[in-house]
């Protein structure tokens, strides 16, 4: 690049940055910067990476992305980007981008043991269809599955969910978001009866107290952390508290860091609740008007298999806890029982059941959580003075209780990936509700999101095994009927049996209950705990695995067929972030080679099936539901014919390219503004699938407190996403607060209008005493949940705690970020962070290679005893982006029994020099 051009670009970069910072520049400087960008076409986009949902501007010239910038008009990031934001423009240009379908073949035929060879799309779909039909014939809807994603665009998730649920009549679709958000969802549904946060990111500027629980925001949500830091450093009254098991970068500017022992967050929450009660800091007016108290069973297991049939020998002592648990001395105090008592886990099948209790019962429940008890139980750093630690807990409780303070609590994976993840979510709401510090500017418990559309797609579209769009669920007959009506399906087409969650799909592949699976927009064979089992399952002779991905991943490597897939700005899409903001972008550049978007892949596959192939009578093992007494899905072909369908109609025509949807035409000049749509063009039948399907989908939520605006609205030049519910063109800032939310009843002040689980029996702390259900419409629930010990803890053999998560520079399994060669070199391999004393005790020096070994597997890693994560004695951490340090071979596939989300944060390991 010549010097003049370089100087030119710098002027331009400086001008863009100044604009983002609100600095007014002289006209001459702006003119010069415009000149430098001649020929670059800018369009708004959304960051591909975390759940923050930063707005970015994408600059293209001659069919290539040449620049990106933080969108100064985006309220989320106000023109800034974190390091990952930069890679939006680069990730699509990796060297090993897949550009043609690849199939395992020998002598021109599919062969499970064959080598990958390039094939045409036609050939790829032929084999995919053949294998699908074989399994579907043999096993019915439950023999097939889709591994979905929190990184699906909204139309992508909608196509996959509708194809599976309405077309194939299977609920075996579940996203990787299960691993990231499911506990948060259960917390929302249980507490509020409706999913997703009440507040929004502006809470940061409105509050004066920020408490992070199990969220390393500095590394994992850097732009939100920049807003928090800005707030902290410009106002001395603002206090930050970081609760964590490992000292991390978020502690760097915190006023107080509380290092606690894994799993004892539950005890700390109950200590705070007890303090609120003891000091009568309860906002009685708020609680009396808007809340009830509730609890549920404790004997709910840990989400493991009920049998040790598939266990390695070493796994059996942990697996047995799924059946019975011997209470330790702390659990005994916490649960008002006797130490050593053996508790049969009787409620593993109904972990979410709960009932109302009185305030007196609630007080009795939190009574054991005294400062002395909780401090000795929860103190995580063996070298920290107990009295000093107690002072911190007291200070934390005081910050929450202080009537002159607003408080926001943030959390992510430390809570969600937890063997009692749903409980810790509920307990943060309990604290905020009891104080009346919820759903108002600067006050609220706020669940942050890990993936760009875990909210917008996985949750709102409902790409889970139990969900339909807009918080509807498959096991509710009214919800099914509503969906069948909207989708123009015959009655009883939809399957009432909840499908397999993502970990269970893996287990199903292992034990032969699923034999055909399609991986979309994720890398589950690297990202699922206890991976050795699943890698082997993928290669079982009976199983056929399809992986759609832009790059070769671990999942692709164990696949039978790989479909080359278009990436973010090579297609049209919409994402929904953690503050309910739906944002949209257009296709900016064409995908390389024969790579195609996921929407096209789903639609193309749907063309291969006729109604008569899938809407006849279907066996469903274990199906029990009203109207399905014979345990089968009935044939709906006769009813379909009455509705005007022919048994020879394809799923493409009946579910997607419907008469109404075909009216939504491509090209669409007013929205496209010169941008292409490779999917509409390849389909070539004149409709605009993303727009038609989005507008169909939004009908689920309109009028049901999930209102999304129409497709075109999100593409408006002045729109930078809108926070749903969007009512009369207006977004909603704080839900459940009458001042901001039009769904609240007039005069209510606050109205927790969510409809789910809003009639309950009542009882005491241990049991239901009155089975008659009482309505608690418009109210939120304050739960009591006791401390329970982690099922796997360090012992003599495996003597260290191990936790995994992300680092700043890399995203998830590194499929995209590791393609950027220099970035890969910056953190060449995931390192094992450990305390210098622990390393020394094992004869290990910094940068030595060591084995990390658990009951389930072992991997080698470089040991790091300094740097950004600083574990105290007994704790270790390694990120999971690097398949070379395949940490999920070590991790434990325990899940929260309610949410089925895996606990990636608490495995016991040993470390020794390699």
């Amino acid at each position, binding site marked *: *690049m010549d010097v003049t051009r*370089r100087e030119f*670009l*710098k*002027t*331009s*970069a*400086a001008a*863009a*940055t*100044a604009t*983002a*910072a*609100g*600095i007014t520049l002289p006209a001459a400087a702006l003119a010069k910067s415009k000149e430098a960008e001649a020929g670059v076409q800018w369009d708004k986009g959304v960051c591909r990476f975390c759940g923050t949902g930063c707005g970015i501007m994408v*600059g293209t*010239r001659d069919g290539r992305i*040449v*620049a*990106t*910038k*933080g969108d100064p008009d985006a309220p989320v990031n106000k*023109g*800034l*980007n*974190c*390091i990952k*934001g*930069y890679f939006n*423009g*680069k990730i699509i*240009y*990796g*060297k*090993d*981008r*897949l*550009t043609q379908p*690849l199939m395992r073949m020998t002598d021109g035929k599919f062969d499970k043991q064959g*080598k*990958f060879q*390039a094939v045409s799309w036609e050939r790829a779909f032929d084999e995919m269809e053949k294998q699908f039909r074989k399994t579907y014939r043999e096993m019915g809807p439950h023999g097939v599955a889709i591994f979905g994603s929190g990184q699906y665009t909204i139309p992508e998730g909608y196509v996959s969910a509708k194809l599976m649920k309405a077309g194939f009549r299977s609920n075996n679709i579940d996203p990787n978001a299960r691993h990231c958000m499911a506990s948060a969802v259960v917390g929302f549904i249980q507490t509020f009866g409706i999913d997703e946060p009440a507040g929004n990111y502006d809470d940061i500027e409105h509050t004066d107290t920020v408490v992070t629980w199990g969220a390393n925001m500095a590394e994992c949500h*850097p732009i939100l952390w*920049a807003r928090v*830091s*800005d707030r902290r*450093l410009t106002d001395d009254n603002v206090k930050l508290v970081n609760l964590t098991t490992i000292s991390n970068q978020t502690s760097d500017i915190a006023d107080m860091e509380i290092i606690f022992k894994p799993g004892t967050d539950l005890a700390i929450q109950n200590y705070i609740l007890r303090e609120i009660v003891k000091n009568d800091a309860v906002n009685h007016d708020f609680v009396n008007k808007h809340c009830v108290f509730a609890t549920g069973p404790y004997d709910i297991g840990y989400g493991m298999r009920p049998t040790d049939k598939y266990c390695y020998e070493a796994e059996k002592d942990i697996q047995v806890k799924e059946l019975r648990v011997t209470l330790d001395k702390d659990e005994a105090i916490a649960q008002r029982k006797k130490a050593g008592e053996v508790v049969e886990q009787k409620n593993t099948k109904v972990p979410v059941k709960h009932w109302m209790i009185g305030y007196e019962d609630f007080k009795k429940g939190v009574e054991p959580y005294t400062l002395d008890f909780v401090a000795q139980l929860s103190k995580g750093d063996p070298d920290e003075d107990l009295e000093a630690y107690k002072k911190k807990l007291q200070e934390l409780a005081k910050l929450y209780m202080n009537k002159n303070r607003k408080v926001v609590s943030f959390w992510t994976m430390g809570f969600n990936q937890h063997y009692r993840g749903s409980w810790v979510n509920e307990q943060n709401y309990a604290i905020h509700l009891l104080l009346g510090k919820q759903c108002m500017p600067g006050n609220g418990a706020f669940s942050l999101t890990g993936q760009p559309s875990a909210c917008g797609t996985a949750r709102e579209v409902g790409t889970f095994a139990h969900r339909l769009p807009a918080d509807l669920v498959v096991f509710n007959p009214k919800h099914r009927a509503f969906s069948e009506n909207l989708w123009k399906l015959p009655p009883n087409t939809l399957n009432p049996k909840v499908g397999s969650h993502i970990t269970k799909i893996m287990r199903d592949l292992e034990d032969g209950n699923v034999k055909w699976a399609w991986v979309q927009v994720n890398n589950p064979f690297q990202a699922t705990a206890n991976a050795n089992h699943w890698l082997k399952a993928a290669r079982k002779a009976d199983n056929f695995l399809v992986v759609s991905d832009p790059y*070769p991943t671990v999942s692709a*490597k164990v696949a039978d067929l*790989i479909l080359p897939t278009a990436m973010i700005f090579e297609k049209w899409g919409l994402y929904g972030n953690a503050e309910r903001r739906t944002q949209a972008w257009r296709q900016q550049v064409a995908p*390389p*080679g024969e790579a195609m978007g996921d929407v096209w892949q789903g639609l193309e596959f749907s063309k291969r099936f006729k109604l008569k192939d899938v809407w006849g009578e279907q066996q469903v093992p274990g199906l029990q539901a009203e109207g399905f007494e014979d345990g089968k899905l009935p044939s709906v072909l006769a009813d379909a014919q009455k509705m005007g369908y022919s048994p020879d109609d394809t799923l493409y025509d009946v579910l997607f390219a419907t008469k109404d949807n075909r009216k939504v035409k491509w090209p669409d000049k007013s929205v496209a503004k010169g941008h292409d749509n490779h999917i509409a063009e390849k389909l070539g039948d004149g409709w605009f699938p993303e727009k038609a399907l989005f507008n169909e989908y939004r009908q689920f939520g309109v009028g049901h407190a999930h209102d999304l605006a129409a497709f075109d609205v999100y593409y408006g030049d002045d729109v930078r996403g809108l926070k749903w519910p969007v009512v009369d063109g207006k977004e909603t800032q704080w839900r459940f607060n009458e001042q901001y939310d039009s769904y609240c009843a007039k005069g209510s002040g606050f109205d927790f209008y969510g409809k789910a689980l809003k009639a309950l029996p009542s009882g005491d702390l241990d049991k239901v005493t009155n089975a008659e259900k009482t309505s608690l419409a418009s109210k939120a629930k304050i739960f009591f949940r006791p401390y329970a010990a982690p099922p796997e803890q360090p012992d003599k053999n495996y003597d260290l705690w191990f936790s995994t998560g992300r680092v700043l*520079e890399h995203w998830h399994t590194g499929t995209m970020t590791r*393609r*950027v*060669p*220099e*970035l890969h*070199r*910056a953190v060449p391999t995931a390192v094992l962070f450990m305390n210098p004393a622990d390393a020394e005790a094992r004869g290990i020096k910094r940068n030595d290679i060591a084995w990390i070994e658990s009951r389930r597997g072992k991997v080698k890693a470089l040991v790091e005893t300094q740097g950004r994560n600083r574990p105290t004695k007994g704790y270790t951490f390694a990120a999971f982006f690097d398949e070379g340090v395949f940490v999920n071979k070590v991790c434990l596939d325990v899940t929260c029994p309610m949410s089925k989300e895996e606990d990636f944060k608490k495995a016991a390991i040993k470390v020794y020099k390699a």
Partner: protein
Amino acid sequence: MNISGILVVVSPQRVESMVDQLSGLDGIDVHHIDAATGRIVITQEAATIRDEVDGLKRIQALPGIILAEMSYHNFEDDSELLQGIPADLDDTDKVPAYLKE
């Protein structure tokens, strides 16, 4: 070659000394200063993404920094990037080495 625009925020009384420090760093040019709000706009020129990332971290680590984040990124003739794209898709092996192992 990467060129980035970076926003640096410091307390207003530190602007002058921070500008001096930033000016002394390799690859950094100071372009605009808003003394009243403590905002400084700089550009960073870096040969590789690693230099880019490390360069930003080195700024974030300076004492007195309230915020330093990127805002703009240009990689219009980034050679690393261009190498990433096979010159002629039809001539390349469709099966990456990784999948042949």
